[in-house]
C-alpha cells in the first residue's frame, strides 16, 4: 500500500525524492571533501613536521604565512634547536601535458610547488621511485608520481616552471595526494628565481623534544613577536581555513537537510489532505490510529530512504568526478564509515521529522467528518 500511495502522484513524489537525494548528496560530497582535505593536511603536517613549527604571527593558516629567510638563522641560534628547515610552497601554472604550448590558457593547469633544502632530512622523506634527488645550484626538480602520470613526464624530461626550464631528475611517491601531485626543487634555486621571496614555515627539530618543547615555544613567542611557534602535533588546529570550510560544509548540509525535510513534509501534508476521506474509510473499517500513523511514517520513511540511497550515490559519484577534474591534489575525498552512518541517521531523521506533523494531522481526522469530506 505504501508504494501505491507514493506512486499516485509520481511527479510530486519524484520531486521530494530528488530533494532528499540532493540534500544527502551535498552532505556526502561536502563531508567527504572536508574529511579528505583534513586528512591531506594532517598527513602533510606529519610529513613536514619538526617538533615545532614556526609561522608568521596572526595568519589565517600556515599556508598563508610569509617569513623572511633570516628567520632560519635566528632560530638556529637557539641552543635547544638541532635543525631548522625552511618550507616554501606556492601555486603556479604548468602545461597540462608537459610538452604542450605554454601560451594556451586552456592547456594549462594549476600546480603545487614546494622548495626544500637540498640534501636535507626533510627532502629525503619523499621516497624516490625513479631517478635521484636534485643537486644544489642546478635547475632540477623531483616530481610527484601523480603529477608525472597526469602530465606524461618521466626522468630526463623538462618542465617549464616559474619561467625556468627544470630538468626532472627524480619521481617520488609519498601516498599523500597533495604531495604526489606536486614538484619539489631546491630552496637555493627558489631564492635565485624569486629574489625577494619569503618562506612559509620553519620546521624545527629539537635536541630533547620532551623536555624542551614548551621552553622553546615560549621563548620564540616571547622574544619574536613577529613569529608564532606551534607544537607540530597541534598544527591542524591552526589550519583555520579547514575549520572554516568544515563549518561552511556543515552549515550547507543543514540547510539542504531542512529543505529536504520541508519537501517531505509538504508531500505528506498534501497527501494527507487529499486522502482525508480515505483515512476516514480506514478508520471506519477498524484500522487503529497507530496503523494509520505507521502507514504515513512508512511512506515518508520510504521516500527519505530512496532519496538517501540515491543521494549517497550521487554524492559519491559527484565527488569523484570533481576530484578527477581538479588539477591540484588538495581536493581529495575520504568516505569513513562515520560519514555513511551520519548520512543514514540524517536520512531517517528527515523521513521521521517530515512525517510527524502529517501523522499528527491524520490522527485528528474524525472518521465521520472524513467520510463526508469532498
Amino acid at each position: 500500500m505504501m508504494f501505491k500511495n507514493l506512486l499516485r502522484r509520481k511527479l510530486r513524489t519524484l520531486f521530494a525524492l530528488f530533494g532528499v537525494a540532493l540534500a544527502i548528496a551535498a552532505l556526502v560530497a561536502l563531508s567527504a571533501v572536508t574529511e579528505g582535505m583534513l586528512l591531506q593536511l594532517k598527513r602533510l603536517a606529519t610529513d613536514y613536521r619538526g617538533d615545532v613549527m614556526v609561522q608568521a604571527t596572526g595568519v589565517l593558516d600556515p599556508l598563508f604565512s610569509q617569513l623572511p629567510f633570516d628567520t632560519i638563522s635566528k632560530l638556529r641560534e637557539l641552543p635547544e634547536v638541532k635543525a631548522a628547515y625552511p618550507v616554501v610552497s606556492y601555486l603556479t601554472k604548468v602545461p597540462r601535458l608537459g610538452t604542450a604550448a605554454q601560451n594556451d590558457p586552456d592547456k594549462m593547469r594549476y600546480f603545487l610547488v614546494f622548495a626544500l633544502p637540498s640534501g636535507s632530512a626533510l627532502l629525503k622523506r619523499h621516497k624516490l621511485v625513479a631517478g635521484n634527488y636534485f643537486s644544489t645550484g642546478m635547475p632540477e626538480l623531483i616530481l610527484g608520481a601523480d603529477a608525472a602520470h597526469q602530465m606524461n613526464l618521466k626522468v630526463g624530461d623538462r618542465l617549464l616552471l616559474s619561467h625556468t626550464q627544470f630538468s626532472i631528475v627524480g619521481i617520488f611517491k609519498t601516498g599523500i595526494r597533495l604531495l604526489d601531485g606536486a614538484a619539489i626543487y631546491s630552496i637555493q634555486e627558489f631564492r635565485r628565481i624569486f629574489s625577494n621571496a619569503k618562506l612559509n614555515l620553519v620546521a624545527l627539530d629539537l635536541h630533547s623534544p620532551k623536555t624542551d618543547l614548551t621552553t622553546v615555544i615560549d621563548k620564540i613567542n616571547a622574544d619574536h613577536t613577529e613569529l608564532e611557534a606551534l607544537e607540530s602535533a597541534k598544527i591542524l588546529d591552526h589550519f583555520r581555513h579547514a575549520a572554516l570550510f568544515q563549518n561552511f560544509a556543515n552549515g550547507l548540509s543543514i540547510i539542504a537537510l531542512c529543505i529536504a525535510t520541508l519537501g517531505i513534509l509538504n508531500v505528506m501534508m498534501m497527501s494527507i489532505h487529499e486522502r482525508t476521506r480515505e483515512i476516514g474509510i480506514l478508520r471506519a473499517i477498524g484500522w487503529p490510529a497507530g496503523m494509520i500513523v505507521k502507514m504515513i511514517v512508512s511512506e515518508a520513511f520510504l521516500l527519505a530512504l530512496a532519496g538517501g540511497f540515491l543521494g549517497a550515490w550521487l554524492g559519491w559519484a559527484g565527488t569523484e568526478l570533481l576530484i578527477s577534474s581538479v588539477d591540484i591534489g588538495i581536493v581529495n575525498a575520504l568516505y569513513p564509515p562515520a560519514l555513511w552512518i551520519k548520512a543514514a541517521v540524517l536520512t531517517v531523521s528527515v523521513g521521521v521529522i517530515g512525517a510527524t506533523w502529517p501523522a499528527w494531522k491524520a490522527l485528528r481526522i474524525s472518521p465521520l467528518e472524513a467520510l463526508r469530506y469532498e
Partner: protein
Amino acid sequence: MNDVIVDFQNVSRFFEEGRVRALERVSLKIYRGETVAVTGPSGSGKSTLLGLMGALDFPSSGEVKIMGSAITPDAPLARLRNEKIGFVFQQHHLLPHLNLEENVMAPLRPARVPLKEARAKSRELLDRLGLADRADFLPAKLSNGERQRAALARALINDPQLILADEPTGSLDSANGEVVVERLLRAAVGKTLVVVTHNPEISSRMGRVVQILDGRLIET
C-alpha cells in the same frame, strides 16, 4: 432474540456548541437478528444515529452501548468497528488505488491475517457477490453496482455481528439497487442489519422501521 446489540439510552448529539441539535434524547434497543430500517427526511439525524451505532462518533449526552461496549473516547473503538461492525455507505468508498481484492481484504490488516488467508477470504466473498472476475480491477474500472457489491464484500469480510448501511442503494439504479439489497438481506441472516433509507420499498422488507424527525425517534 434477546441479545441487545444496539442500546441507546437518552442519547443526544449536538454540533456547533449546541446550536445544531442532530439527535435529542433518543432511546432505542436493537436486538440480535433484527433487520431495522431508519427513515426520515434529509437532515433529520439518520446518519448521525448511524454514526453513533457504528462507533464513529460519541454522544453529547446519554449512553450508547454496542454489543455491551460503551461508546466513549477511551474505549477500544477501532477494534470494535473492525471485528464486530460492517459498514456500507451510500458512496462505495473503496480505496481508488487498490484493486477489489485488496480493498476487500483491507479490514483484515489490523488483525494481521496472513496474506494468503486474506486473499482466499477476499476471493471467496467476491465470488459469492458475483465479482470473482473483477478481483484485479481498480474501482474506477467498475460499474456503480459492482463497486457497491465490492463495498458490501469489504463490510462482510470480518463476519460482523452488526451491519450498518447508509443509503446503500442511493447511488444505484433500481436493478442494481435490488441486487445490493438482496445480498445485504442474505448476508444479514443471523446478524443484525440497520439500514438508513428513503426508499419505502427497502423499508418494507425490514423487520422493523424507526423514523427520525427533527432528531427525535418515532417508532413505527
